[in-house]
């Protein structure tokens, strides 16, 4: 297996490859290697938008080799939170990196003018992107596709205008419809004058024992395709949860003023599937096909002239740009998702920022003057679409503040008690109970996927757990996902990759690990991430928890501040933080 790190310095226009056998042996790959490279590359106190701030992309030993191991980890200093930036994307990137022969890529410096990077096996070029600066993220892909080689095996990742303008929650679009969404990697790209990165390669991987490899591959494949463990993802998809959470009173609605949406049925996964779903597709190497594409057909004249846009949807964007903004139609939500795609904005942060702004306007903290005349009312899809453009272009101080996230905007204009962020990151679509709140707060990247607190709440609703059990579960997930994200498998395939299957699949590529060693690795990865967070000023005890969480009934009933504080106390104690 190739164990190489490709270094690219945009300032010096240089690139070189280093063999880092030991790094990969100790830290596996993916997020494990990512956090170590970040520590090496990012000195304390680095401005996340300065040339000194690195971008690290890393894959792991299973990428391209086993089914559903399709993710690439991005590690950086978050322009949104000012500490650990970590995000994962599927598409074809991990495969392209694997066959280009680079398990990790480190990008430093700042290009003198708008540029993109083209990696073709060992050939690395920094090319002029002046003529596509300002072009939307989708069209950028269309243009580079024509210019670059590697049809069918390449990956094109790029930013839109929001990334160029360093909006703190700008995303990086990966091969269309997939993203490094959270924590602002798009802004980091923009700050480096880096519009895009194209990767393709023709290497192959030799496995030590082909018979064993084929046996393990077939077993994992059969589990993924032929059993119920991934069924949710290849039927209605993640959006199946809209109905479920709405019914449980766990679906954040109108900036968490409500936890169920009376119009929920119209924006359910079932409704999207019936009315709009036209196809599904997969990240390369995954037989599931969880990416759901809707057709949005809009008339642009009275003479039966239509424009058709193909938009991907999932649970989180339907929450953030849908129920959370009181948007009652699937068409409206698709229009907003499409706007985010073009601009290159993270849909989750974008929705939560707009829901704060809507409430702040309603409550008179801001006026028409700040919004530049936009009414910003629940369900006003056209107003929100315009506002998203304003966020990306920052025509005034207010929209510039929105572009720095809900926490920043609320500190400036008020309404902190309903600025729905945890750890500085706009929250995901779950008001399921205390574990969701605590989970996102303590998680290394303040994502619901750090430890799936929302899942722990739902488990506890079915069969009550005490707070200590919930915390134990959270810590277990925190740690085990560090390993999972080092392989780098898709978290949707957790049911496929049991501990035993992880050990077997690693064995098939010649990496021998015991259960204990893997658990130890997970713990170490978590600790290294917290070390970085602490170094950059993150203090768990100083974090704001929006009061709104305690004012709106959750799927577990009313959540009290005391419960959350008690869980945090237990968490700290169990982590040995005193």
């Amino acid at each position, binding site marked *: 297996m190739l164990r190489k790190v490709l270094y690219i310095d945009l300032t010096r226009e240089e690139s070189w490859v280093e063999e880092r056998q030991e790094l990969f042996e100790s830290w596996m790959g993916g997020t494990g290697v990512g956090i170590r490279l970040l520590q090496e590359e990012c000195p304390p106190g680095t401005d996340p938008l300065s040339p000194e701030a690195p971008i690290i992309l890393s894959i792991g030993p299973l990428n391209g080799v086993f089914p559903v191991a399709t993710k690439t980890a991005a590690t950086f200093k978050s322009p949104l939170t000012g500490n650990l930036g970590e995000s994962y994307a599927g*598409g074809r990137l991990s*495969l392209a990196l694997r066959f280009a022969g680079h398990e990790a890529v480190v990008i430093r410096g700042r290009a003198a003018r708008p540029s993109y990077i083209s990696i073709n096996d060992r050939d690395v070029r920094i090319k002029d992107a002046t003529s596509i600066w300002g072009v939307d993220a*989708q069209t950028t892909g269309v243009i580079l596709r024509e210019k670059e080689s590697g049809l069918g095996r390449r990956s094109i990742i790029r930013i839109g205008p929001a990334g160029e303008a360093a909006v703190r929650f700008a995303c990086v679009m990966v*091969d*269309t419809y997939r993203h490094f969404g959270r924590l602002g990697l798009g802004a980091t790209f923009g700050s480096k004058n880096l519009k895009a990165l194209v990767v393709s390669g023709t290497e192959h991987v030799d*496995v030590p024992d082909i018979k064993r490899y084929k046996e393990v591959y*077939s077993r994992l494949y059969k589990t993924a395709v*032929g059993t119920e463990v991934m069924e949710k993802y290849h039927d209605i998809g993640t959006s199946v949860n809209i109905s479920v959470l709405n019914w449980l009173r766990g679906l954040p609605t109108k900036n968490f003023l409500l936890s169920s949406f009376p119009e929920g049925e119209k924006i359910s996964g079932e409704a999207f599937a019936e009315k709009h779903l036209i196809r599904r597709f997969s990240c390369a*190497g995954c*037989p599931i096909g969880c990416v759901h594409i809707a057709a949005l057909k809009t008339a642009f004249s009275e003479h039966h002239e239509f424009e058709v846009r193909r938009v991907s949807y999932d649970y989180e964007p339907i929450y953030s740009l849908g129920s959370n903004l009181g948007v009652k139609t699937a068409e409206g939500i698709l229009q907003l998702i499409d706007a985010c795609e073009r601009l290159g904005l993270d849909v989750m942060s974008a929705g939560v920022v707009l829901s704060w702004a809507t409430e702040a306007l309603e409550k008179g903290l801001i006026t028409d003057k700040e919004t530049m005349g936009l009414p910003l009312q629940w369900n006003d899809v056209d107003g929100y679409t315009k506002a998203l453009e304003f966020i990306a272009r920052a025509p005034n101080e207010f929209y510039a503040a929105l572009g720095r996230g809900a926490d920043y905007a609320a500190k400036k204009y008020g309404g902190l008690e309903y600025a729905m962020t945890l750890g500085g990151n706009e929250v995901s679509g779950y008001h399921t109970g205390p574990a969701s709140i605590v989970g996102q707060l303590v998680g290394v990247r303040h994502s619901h996927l750090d430890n799936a607190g929302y899942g722990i709440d739902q488990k506890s609703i079915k069969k009550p757990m005490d707070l200590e059990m919930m915390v134990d579960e959270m810590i277990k997930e925190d740690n085990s996902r560090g390993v999972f994200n080092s392989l780098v498998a898709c978290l949707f395939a957790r049911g496929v990759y049991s501990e035993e299957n992880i050990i077997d699949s690693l064995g098939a590529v010649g990496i021998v690990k015991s259960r204990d060693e893997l658990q130890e690795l997970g713990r170490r990865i978590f600790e290294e991430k917290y070390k970085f967070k602490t170094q950059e000023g993150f203090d768990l005890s100083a974090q704001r928890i929006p009061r709104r969480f305690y004012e709106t009934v959750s799927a577990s009933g009313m959540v009290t501040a005391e419960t959350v504080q008690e869980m945090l106390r237990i968490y700290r104690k169990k982590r040995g933080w005193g």
Partner: protein
Amino acid sequence: MPEIHVKEMEASQGEPGLNHQEIEENSPSKPKKRRRLKVANPERCIGCLGCMFACSRIRTGTVSLDRSAIKVQTQGGIEGDYRVVVCRACRDPPCARACPTGALEKKADGRVVFHKDLCQGCGKCQEACLVGAIVLGKEKLPIKCIHCGACVDFCPHGVLEMEEIPVEGG
């Protein structure tokens, strides 16, 4: 979801290009009909590339996209439709006709077999194939479908099927 039959073809390990011949030469008594891979439902493709990995894994014993004889391509990016490129097992195969050294040989039953030792890597076969089903790999050897059906078992959406076609003159 279709039922999955994972039928492991025990192709020997080694260089791509080597195995075709071995498998074909070792096939049991020649059938009256031969099997041909068919793209039955291209619209159902989700672009997972499972077929390509199955091809390189089972036919060449490696993990590779480059060594796959079946190609899944995008047309205009992922927003567009997928194009699945497979050998059509032509009755009068242009690849064999174009081969100047006899490395690609058309057998009496219509199959085309590859003799690695005769191949000079000139790429005439690639030029001759209009659908782009035979291409020179990185090692400058043609990568050619042997219609073994390994890919069919790893297509989760029933895009691929095996069909039987009459043996020429049989």
